């Protein structure tokens, strides 16, 4: 088997006395969709922040395409092909949707006209082209989530981290986003996705990694994981196990 695109090696991240991510290891193969699940506060977003360079791991390291990227700043990691979205969306509220995406396009298209053209293409793909000239502050939550994806895609990443891009959408919107994610996978993008909605995550993931209280408690295909007693216990409590 080829070298995995991402390897998380015994990563621990502490905040003072709190161990938010505790000795977690797993890897992601090229072209895969891996779902990262776990109850609230399990450490999913913290792990995303470590992988995307927002936090340096307290222990362990992260290998991306064969290079140790732990502790490298996010803007360098964007340059090597890691795109991410934020669970708490971060639109540039005072700018238009097109400007938001154009800024991300500068990474691969340093000329403004080229970046703008590329941003339009991305917006056509994500279904936001109709809203290109409105202020990002004027988007609904669904629109803002799609803007998050658009910005990450405009980086033309090889690896995409999606943090709850479906949660909070109505079923129609959710289906559209799932459709988009499957389209991206078909284009060869590797995706690590955090999502609480089981219907979605079970359907789109090739494999799942389950966190609870910062620790990895299970890993495997969706069917393996859903029948794992540790996972059932983490999600439904002692009695159900």
């Amino acid at each position, binding site marked *: 088997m080829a070298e995995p695109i991402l390897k998380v090696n015994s990563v621990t991240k502490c905040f003072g006395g709190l161990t938010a991510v505790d000795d977690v290891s797993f890897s992601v193969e090229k072209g895969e969709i891996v779902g990262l699940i776990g109850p609230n506060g399990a450490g999913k977003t913290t792990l995303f922040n470590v992988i995307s*360079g927002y936090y340096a791991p307290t222990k362990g390291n992260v290998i991306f395409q064969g290079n140790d990227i732990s502790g490298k700043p996010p*803007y360098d990691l964007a340059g090597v092909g890691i795109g991410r979205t934020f669970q708490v969306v971060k639109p540039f509220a005072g700018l238009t949707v097109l400007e938001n995406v154009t800024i991300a396009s*500068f990474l691969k298209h340093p000329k*403004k006209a080229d970046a703008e053209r590329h941003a339009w293409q991305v917006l056509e793909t994500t279904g936001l*082209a109709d809203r290109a000239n409105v202020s990002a502050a004027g988007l609904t939550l669904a629109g803002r989530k799609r803007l998050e994806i658009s910005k990450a895609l405009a980086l033309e990443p090889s690896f995409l981290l999606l943090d709850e891009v479906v949660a909070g959408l109505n079923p129609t919107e959710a289906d559209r986003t799932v459709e988009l994610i499957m389209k991206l996978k078909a284009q060869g993008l590797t995706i690590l996705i955090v999502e609480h909605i089981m219907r979605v995550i079970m359907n789109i993931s090739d494999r799942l990694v389950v966190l609870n209280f910062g620790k990895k408690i299970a890993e495997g295909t969706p069917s393996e994981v859903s029948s794992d007693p540790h996972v059932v216990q983490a999600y439904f409590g002692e009695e159900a196990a």
Partner: protein
Amino acid sequence: MKNRGATILAIIGAALLILPLVVHDTFVLRVLTEGVMWIGLAIAFDVIAGYTGYLNFGHGAFFGIGAYTIGILMMQAHLPFWAALPAGGVAAGIVALIAGIPTLRLKGAYFAIATWALSRAIQQLALNMEMTGGPDGMRLEAFLNPQFFYYLMLITVGATFAILWYLLERAPFGLKLKAIREDEEGAKALGLNPTKLKMQSFILSALPTGILGGIYAYWITFIDPSSTLGDLVSDQAVVMVVFGGMGTLFGPALGAILIFAFKTIFWAYLSDFQLLYLIILGALIAISVIFIPNGLWGTLVKRKAGATRPEQKAEPASEPAALSAVAAPEEGN
């Protein structure tokens, strides 16, 4: 729209160039020279404050540093004006670099307070050093040619405007700065290095300000810590930009013209009431922030519809779900 804007600019530019040939009154020329200078100070201030979102309450320090650099180089190192002038900009740029390292890590009010404190410290330095003449200030060799200074100021500010216009409105740099202003953490994920961009923006703001300070020193021929390093330069720049419209170039220019015209008229008729002028400036900031948060320019000139969608490849009529992104009541965050 674009062409009309260019035409208006060309007419204003031509009028400003011809003016000294028509107006021979030295007082009027002097007022115009200073007015043009304020346009330059306001747009330079806006680079860091409006575009990047870092309200620099010590902008005046760059002006004073430029003024003193030219003064010292001309009077003590006996350099000619043209050799000293670029050094004024460079000195201000270097101070921005050094001051930026600790202060640009701060956000919001903390940055404003830190830059204000630093500018006070620089004023104290000028008050206590021998090289600067201390509180007595410094007299420069006089070159009494109002036309020369009017044109020099006009060309410098015109060039500053053109360069800033290119960098901030045409090149990617301006949008990148706005990304920093809107969300520094979010910008990092898109490949932007906030530390680097903020530093570039601070230096870009300081350079022309130092040069303007240098021209001012040679023009007025006398500088002291209160006239060039006092609060007034920073305070006026803040009011002009906030009142005119932050994060644009025309807004601060408009703000500079209006505030400076007001100040000139006010001081001409009520010269005993400088305190009252400061009170009015303060009130004006408050009123602008509350009633016209986008400033005069942002309120008068609504942003045009923006970029047009490029030709689309034959695609099925846009799917209905696309509408779900349309603005509707907030759904929370």
